[in-house]
């Protein structure tokens, strides 16, 4: 299978030299200029000011393949190694950075930053830090531009020792933002369903799988949860007492409410940008069809009415388009239609069985699970039906969905035997299991924040 992804990768951007070369020269004081020119130049200065603040070291939207060599020094003090290791793992997973081997470092963590120690080993950015305290941690972190020999970020972080991992992820986010100009995903989480002893429960873990905990939500069968856009709610289907209900978990109110139930199979889909409106599929009127529902008004709106099975609706980021599964042509395939149910068209023509679509928050890709050689694999496709790409090739791989920046995909796989949750880059690289052995899990969904 050809891998033909070229959407994002790392590259230096030419704005790097902006700040170093602009030196206002007093020699020019004698010059005077017409008023129009003056206004124009003021505008230029303002633009320059903005550019200097938002200096971007790597343009992660560029298709070129260069990774930024970064040295993450072992931090000094309590938990210094743990914290700097987490930061390194975070940056490494992105595929944007080349994290240099600490064995090659010329400068001990305790020594002051000297750019010559770093340029000689090829480092272009250097992270150094010191952690003090045992129960209450204070971490002071510096990020240096090794080529220019200057500090580009210095920040002090405080937290309790139990939040060591969130602390490290926050530092990684700041480094990521400084270098790329975009928000990192290192403090996001993944919700998934764990099946134990004939009962399902919803778990929440950090994006890297650590700090997994049950939310207390239990049911005979629970299906993949869906996040509201603000991350404060989870919507999921659960079969309880012989009925499929759609339930809402509100993190702010720490409450669970049944928002919809009827005879038949009700399966929750994505939230619209409006936090009270969602899409779902239900067999309340015969076979599985798609509906929208607005919670406080109990407003139900039917979108499809075919005799076939219509399930797994996923929404474009603005909520204007719906991708879903229909077997109206004989086998389950991806379709796309407008928000009001009009203009439906088939998206997939390859393979006998394509299901579980999920739309990228960037809007440019839809991932889904498709049958290939008797096994389910993860594929990505453009919303216009072009650019279909296979991303997995071991075991059965299902339930794909995107990270909030659209750069990573979380999915379930049985490649190790039992079903587990995996993450990977959007091009299929760096596939990594994030759930422990002995826990049977499925239906993962990445939090929006």
């Amino acid at each position, binding site marked *: 299978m050809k891998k033909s992804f070229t959407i994002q990768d790392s590259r230096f951007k030419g704005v790097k030299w902006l700040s170093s070369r602009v030196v206002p020269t007093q020699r020019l004081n004698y*010059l005077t200029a017409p008023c129009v020119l003056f206004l124009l130049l003021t505008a230029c200065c303002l633009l320059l000011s903005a550019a200097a603040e938002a200096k971007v070291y790597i343009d992660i939207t560029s298709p070129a393949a260069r990774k930024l060599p970064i040295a993450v020094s072992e931090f000094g003090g309590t938990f210094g190694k743990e914290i700097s290791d987490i930061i390194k793992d975070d940056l490494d997973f992105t595929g944007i950075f080349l994290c240099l081997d600490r064995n090659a470092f010329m400068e001990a963590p305790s020594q002051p930053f000297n750019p010559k120690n770093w340029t000689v080993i090829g480092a272009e950015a250097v992270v150094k830090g010191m952690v003090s305290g045992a129960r209450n941690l204070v971490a002071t972190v510096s990020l240096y531009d090794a080529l220019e020999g200057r500090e580009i970020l210095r920040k002090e972080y*405080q937290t309790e020792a139990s939040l060591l991992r969130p602390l490290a992820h926050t530092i990684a986010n700041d480094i990521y933002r400084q270098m790329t100009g975009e928000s990192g995903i290192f403090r996001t989480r993944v919700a998934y369903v764990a099946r134990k002893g004939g009962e399902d429960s919803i778990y*929440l873990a950090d994006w890297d799988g650590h700090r997994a905990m049950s939310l207390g939500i239990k049911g005979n069968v629970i*299906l993949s949860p869906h996040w509201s856009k603000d991350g404060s709610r989870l919507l999921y289907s659960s079969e309880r007492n012989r009925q499929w209900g759609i339930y809402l978990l509100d993190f702010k109110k720490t409450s669970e409410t049944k928002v919809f139930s009827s*005879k038949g199979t009700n399966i929750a889909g994505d939230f619209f940008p409006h936090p009270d409106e969602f899409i779902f599929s239900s067999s309340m009127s015969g076979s599985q069809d798609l509906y929208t529902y607005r919670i406080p008004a109990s407003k139900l709106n039917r979108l499809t009415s075919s005799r076939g099975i*219509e*399930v797994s609706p996923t929404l474009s980021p603005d909520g204007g388009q719906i991708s879903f599964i229909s077997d109206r042509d004989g086998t389950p395939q991806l379709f796309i239609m407008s928000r009001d149910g009009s203009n439906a068209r088939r998206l997939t023509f390859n393979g006998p069985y394509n299901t579980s679509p999920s739309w990228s928050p960037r809007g440019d890709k839809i991932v889904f699970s498709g049958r290939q050689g008797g096994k389910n694999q993860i594929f990505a496709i453009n919303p216009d039906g072009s650019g279909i790409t296979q991303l997995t090739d071991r075991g059965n791989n299902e339930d794909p969905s995107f990270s909030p920046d659209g750069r990573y995909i979380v999915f379930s796989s049985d490649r190790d035997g039992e079903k587990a949750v995996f993450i990977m880059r959007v091009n299929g690289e760096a596939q990594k299991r994030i759930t422990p052995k002995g826990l049977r899990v499925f239906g993962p969904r990445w939090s929006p924040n």
Partner: protein
Amino acid sequence: MKKFLVLAAILGFVAFGCAERKAVVPTQPQEMQQPQTKAPEESTKAKEKITEQERAKVESKDIPSKFEEISGMFKDIYFDYDRYDVREDAKQTLKVVADHLRKNTAQKVLIEGHCDERGTSEYNLGLGDKRAKSAKDFLVSLGVPSSRIETISYGKEKPVCSEHTEDCWAKNRRGHFVILKGK
């Protein structure tokens, strides 16, 4: 490279302009004259306290059933792969179920629709729903009032056989009957 040269030319122009403006209007705000030093100065002072909302566990409430359930009175019926029409070999079992309901008028039947593990959870739930409903339609055609027949789909979530073989899959593509008696 060409692009870089153009950018450099523009920058030179801007630097020129900044200095000039400074000479003409000396009362302009300071940061406009030295944009390149602003960011590091500000970041030196940066501090952040990392906190996390304590997550209280939410207990799901159990609603007690109105019915007593009796399972295992009837054989399961089986379906073909990705199909939901009632097979010939299922019709005898369905007739037995219909006879039972005719004799026990206070009872209802719940039909569970199940699928094999191939395919994804949600599509299989749709398929299991169709299987349960086609069994229901057959009972209705035998004279059982539809008000006495409930259906539910479990898709591939409740297999009776867990091996990855055609034998096992065939056993999982089933309709299962549960008698419901009022408590």
